[in-house]
Structures are given as C-alpha cells and as structure tokens.
C-alpha cells in the first residue's frame, strides 16, 4: 500500500511555511517521493517565489507572519498568471469547521497538522488525483511505473 518512492518525480511544489522544523519535515517527505520543491516562510515570500518559479501545486500554511495563508490564497487567485495553480492548505487549524472555511476561501485541498509521512503523502495524492488538471498526468505516471 505504500506509495512508490518516485511517485512525485517531475512535480514542482511550492511550500509556504513559517515554522522551520515543519518546513524541514515537509521538505524531507516530498523530497523522499521525488518532488522538486521551492520554499517560502510567509505569503509575501511565496508571491516572490512564484515570480521566478511556477509550481504545479502550492502547499501553504495559514497562520504566518507578514502575509498569512488567507491573504496569500486570495492574492494568488486574483493574479491571472498564477490563478490556475491549486493551493492546498496545510495547517494546525484543525478545529471542527476550519476545513470548511479553508475550502470556502479558495483552497482546493486541506491537510491538517500534525502529519506523518504516510498520511501526508496519501492525502496529497488524493487531492492531486481528484484535481481535474492532474488526472491524465497520474494516469501516465502510473502507467510508467
């Protein structure tokens, strides 16, 4: 049942997370599965990164200094060049109702902290497979594997 080690090979992801330890954990997991990642420590940095780097998916924390996840999500969605990039919220806001808020705000996925490598990659893959623009890609990559 364990996902293929190279399942995210060829994928480019932007991770926006202010907590260095968490950023480290996420980075290690994604690297393990072969993804190419860029990181930013707040929304503003994330926007700056998006100018030089166009990821397939953005994984963003919500509570961050300078520019939080809500504002970041809103800005991305209202910037035509990058509005198509799906955003997945990765947050410690795991109270009942927080998921609904995030989905309503425009995030296409929602993963709660804390994460384990297994649950995180499973949830991430679920989101990616469900997303319309990635369906074919998984089909081909799955067939390659």
């Amino acid at each position, binding site marked *: 049942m364990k996902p293929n080690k190279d399942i995210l090979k060829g994928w480019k992801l932007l991770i926006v997370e202010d*907590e260095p*330890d*968490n950023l*480290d*954990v*996420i980075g*290690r*997991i994604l690297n*393990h599965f072969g993804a190419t990642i860029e990181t930013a420590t707040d929304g503003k940095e994330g926007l700056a990164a998006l100018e030089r780097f166009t990821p397939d998916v953005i994984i963003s924390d919500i*509570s961050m200094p300078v520019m939080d996840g809500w504002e970041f999500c809103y800005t991305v969605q209202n910037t035509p060049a990058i509005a198509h990039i799906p955003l997945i919220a990765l*947050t*410690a*806001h*795991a*109270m*009942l*109702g927080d*998921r*609904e808020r995030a989905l309503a705000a425009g995030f296409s996925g929602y993963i*709660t*902290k*804390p*994460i*384990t*490598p*297994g649950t995180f990659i499973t949830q991430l893959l679920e989101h990616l497979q469900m997303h319309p623009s990635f369906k074919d890609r998984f089909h081909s990559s799955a067939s390659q594997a």
Partner: protein
Amino acid sequence: MTEQAAIDQVETSQNVPIRNRISFRLILTNIFLAVVPVALITALVLALLTNQIETDTLSDLDALAGQKAVRLEEWLDANTTTLRVVTESNIIFNNALTASNANQTIAAGVVTRYLGQIAETDPKIVSFILYDLDGRVISASDQRFIGRLVNRQPYFANSVNAPDDLHIEPPFFDISENALVLVVTDIIEDLETDEPIGVLAAYLDTDTLSDIMIDRTGLGETGETYLVSGENNYFLTPSRFAAQGFTQNRAYRSTGIDSALNGQDGESLYNDYRGVPVIGNYRYIASLDSALLTEINQSEAFEVIETVRLSVRYSVLIAMAVAASVGVWNALSISRPISDLTTTATRIASGKLEERAPRLGNNEVTVLATTFNTMADTLTHTLTDLDHKVTEIAQANDKLRVANAKVREAARLKSEFLANMSHELRTPLNAIIGFTGIMLEGFSGEMDDEARHMTSRVYENSQNLLRLINEVLDIAKIESGRLDLVRTAFDPHALARQWQSSVGILAEQKGLRFVVEVDAKLPKKLYGDPERIGQLALNLLSNAFKFTDSGTVTLNLVNIGKSWCISVRDTGIGIPAHAKEYIFDEFRQVDGSSRRAYGGTGLGLAITRKLVLMMGGTISVDSEPGKGSEFIITLPLIESLEPRESSGEVALPALP
C-alpha cells in the same frame, strides 16, 4: 398614559348637566314638598274662609236689613198713631167739613190752628191737610195748601177708598214741590152717619226716612242701605255712590232691586246698580212699595280673604326660600363630599397619588370617602410596591445583561483560546510526529531496534496526545455551538470501504476479524456531512478494537425505512448495565480508576452522541458484560437536498 389624558378621561362634576345634579334635584324636591302642602292648605282655608265670610256677611246684612225694616215700620207706626190720635178730635174736623160757609170758615180756622200746633210739636210730621171727598183742601197746617185741590195727587184716590180708613201712600216725587213726598191718610167720618166726609192727610218728613237709611253703622267702608221706589226705580233715600235720584228719568236696576220689587226677599252675591260686585240682602217693603237693599262691596267683605291670600303668598315665598335654603344645605352636605371625592379621584387618576378625600360629617358619604381613601392607600402601596419591583426587575435585568455580555465574552474568549491552543499544540506536535514518522519510515536511513522502539514510542505517544487534543477541542467547539454541519452528496458504500481501509490496520495489529456488511438496499447517493459521519463510525470502530482482545468486530450499514443505521458490534469486554446510563457523558469511562486497563479521554462517545443528535439521529447501546457490545447509530435517510417532511421517527436537523 399621560396626566392630561387621565384628566380628560375622568368625567368631572362640572360636566354633569344642571338638571341632573343631585343638588338641583334636592332643592327642587324640597321646594315642592314645602310649597305643595302650603298651597293645598291655603286653598282649603281660603275656600272655607270665603264661605264663612259669605255666610257671616249675609247674616250680618240680614240682621241689619231687618233692623232697618223694623225701624221703618216703627217710624210709620209712630206716624200713623199720631195721625189717629189727631183724628180722635173728630168733632172739629166734622165742623170744618159740614158747617155752612160762614161757620165753616171759622171751623176751618180752628182746625188750621189745631193742626199747626200739632205739626209744630211733632217734628215727624211736616204738615197736615184736611180735604173733602172732592179733593178740596179745607184746612192745612201750612196755610199755602188751603183752597187747593188734591184730587190729582197720587194718594187722593187711595185715601178716600182706603178700606180700613188708614192709608199709607208710598213715597213719590212731587214735581210742583220738587220734593219727595210720603203721605199718611185717615178718613174723617160724619159723627152722625159714620159716612166718610173727608180725609186728614199727614205729610211725613222723608228726611227721617233718609236718616234711617243713611245710618250705616256696621256697614264698613262700602256698605249701604237704601230704598228704591217701586214706581220707577229711583232712589228714595240717598246712596253712598249715586246722587239721590229724585228725578223720574233715572231708573236704577240690579238683581237685588229687581227681585225685591218683584216681591221676592232674599240675599245673594250680585252686581249692584253701579255694576260693582256686592253681597246683598234685598226685601220688599210693601207699605212703601219699595225695595230695601242692604249691600256691601264684595271687595270689602272679602278683604280679609285678600289679606289672608297676600300673607299666604308671603308665607309661600318664605317657605320656598327656607325650603330652598334647606335643600341647598342638604344638597351641599351630600353633593359636596361627592364632588370632593370626584376631585380627589380625578387628581389620583392624574397621578397625584398622595391626594385624599376630605372626610366631613358622619354619614354614608363619609363612609364612602373613608373607603375611597383606604382604596387609594392600597393603590398607593400597590403602586409603590410595583415601582420597587419594576426597579428591582430593571436592576436584575441590567445585571443579567451585564452577566450575559460577560458570558458571551467569556465564551468568545474560550473559543478563541481553544483555537489558539489547538494551533499552538499542533505546531510542535507536527514536528515531533513528522520527524519520528520520517525516521520510522526509514527516509533517513535504518535505525537499530532499540532506537526504532523508542522512536515508535515517541510516535505513538504523540499520536495519543494529538487525539486527546482533538477530542477536547472538538467537544468544546460542539458545546459552544460553533460546529456547522455541511450537507453534501456522498455514497455510503464508498464511505464503508474508506472506513474499512482506515481501521483495517487496527484489526491486523490485534489479530481480530473485521467484517463489513453493507445493505444492498442502501441508496448509493445520500446527503449529509460525510466527514462527521466518518468521525462517528471511526469513533465506534476504534472503541470496538480498543475493548476487544479476540473475536470479531462487525460494521453493519442497514437501510430501515426512512432512516439508516451504522452498527458496530464487537466481542469485547462489554458494558455493565449500570454504566449504560453514563457512557455517553463527557470524561466517563466504565473504569474511572487510575489503574484502568484502557487509555482514552472518555470523550469519544460524548462527541459521537452530540454529533448524532445534531444530525437528527439517535444512538443506543446493547451490551452484555464479557460477551460484547453493539452500538447503533440511526440517522435520517436524506435522498435529496429538498427538505422533507419530518418522518416523525427521526427529526431533521436544521441546515446551516
């Protein structure tokens, strides 16, 4: 209600029409009661008095008239007596009437002297006349008569034909003498043959007649007696009010005169010759062929009545005044307290609660005023109490409002605190679980058994800590009403498969059999909150695995009518009967001791039950200690987004 409005609503005594006021009616009644008896009695008294006065007056008049008549008769009698005495001296009259011419002259002279002497001595007789049967005056006391003829005088024929010699001629007016004449005659008979040979006539003094009549003693101011001639209705004696009617062309008439001259005596009330109302007595004096009238003006006779009537009028006026005064006094004594009471009531109605009605006198109205005051006291007390209570309630309300605001603020702070807590606890846990997870996955190289064991202990304890945090935060959120359920489409069959894969590892770890049975009748598309429903199922399943050491855990999804059931049955330790009551309460486990064999916060079932109730469902448990338990969640079967009518069995939750 404003004060002005209160005053407007009260009907003040000034608004009562005067004719309806008690005072007016009492005054009217008093006057009526005072005047009517007085008037009735007065009328009766006046009638009786009038009658009495009439009777008395008539009686008096009758007596007077009788007196006058008697005096007339006496006067006439005296005169006739005198005449008879004179005629006793027959011899000298015979000589004068029968002697020869020469002797006769001498004899006549004797008679003339004799008669002159008698006429002088008797003032009642004016003069004597001796005439023969031819009416030739033979001799007279007044020598002017001698030689005249009297055969044309009214009395001549009567005197010579008088049946019993004596004759009284009713008075008449002698035009030649211009005087009223009353003549009494007596026949002189021949001494030898007893044949009438002449008549001796005496002219009476009619002034005496007048004197008798003019004597008005007892006749007051207007009373009078007079004689009216039967010859042609003229006055024989002077009237008080008319000139003495010695003229033939003055005829006086009245009921009394006419009746008397017709020979009827009587008395009655009539208008006299002047047309003035009189009370009169009338009688016919046959010897004088005259009417004797005794009359008095009714105005004088009844003057007493007028006086009485006048004094009665004053009495009535005084009585009315007194009655009115008493009425006013009475009315005021009744109506003023009522009026005062009305004024007081009006003031109280306008909000002047301290007003009280004055208590005057000691009567029913006083009692009313006292009762009214008592009522006003009670009212004041009640209103004061009410004021206090309203103030108290207002104060209590203020306190409640403040307390409520504090509670809401506290709830908001709690909620905020929980959200922050959740976030702040998860953040370090993410690093712990993340790193230990990576280590256990071997991303960063293999560990020896010792390190792996310790890392997995860290990992599992972190997971326990995370679950504890989740449950505490969830129940807090549910209790503060901040949980919103979504309603989206889901496939219960797919959900069951998902749950199976999620908890399958637990069955593997404990070596238990895990059976999933899904009713084929269960629709493939239902509406609800799949995340929360999953939370319910996973809660029950993880409990079942936790408390079961061997045997089977069965998940069963069944469609029963308009609801569907998620049942989780195990072959675990079961639940004692007494514990079934509280296993759904927060922080309760069957074994609450510190040495209990199973971990957990005791919040799982509490959260489950609350979520089920929020979804409009029910949860029940059936268990036998030592043999196992079965938890059954029943949820409404919602096949469309359109709200359905409540099935009665299961109520729909309110949609967010």
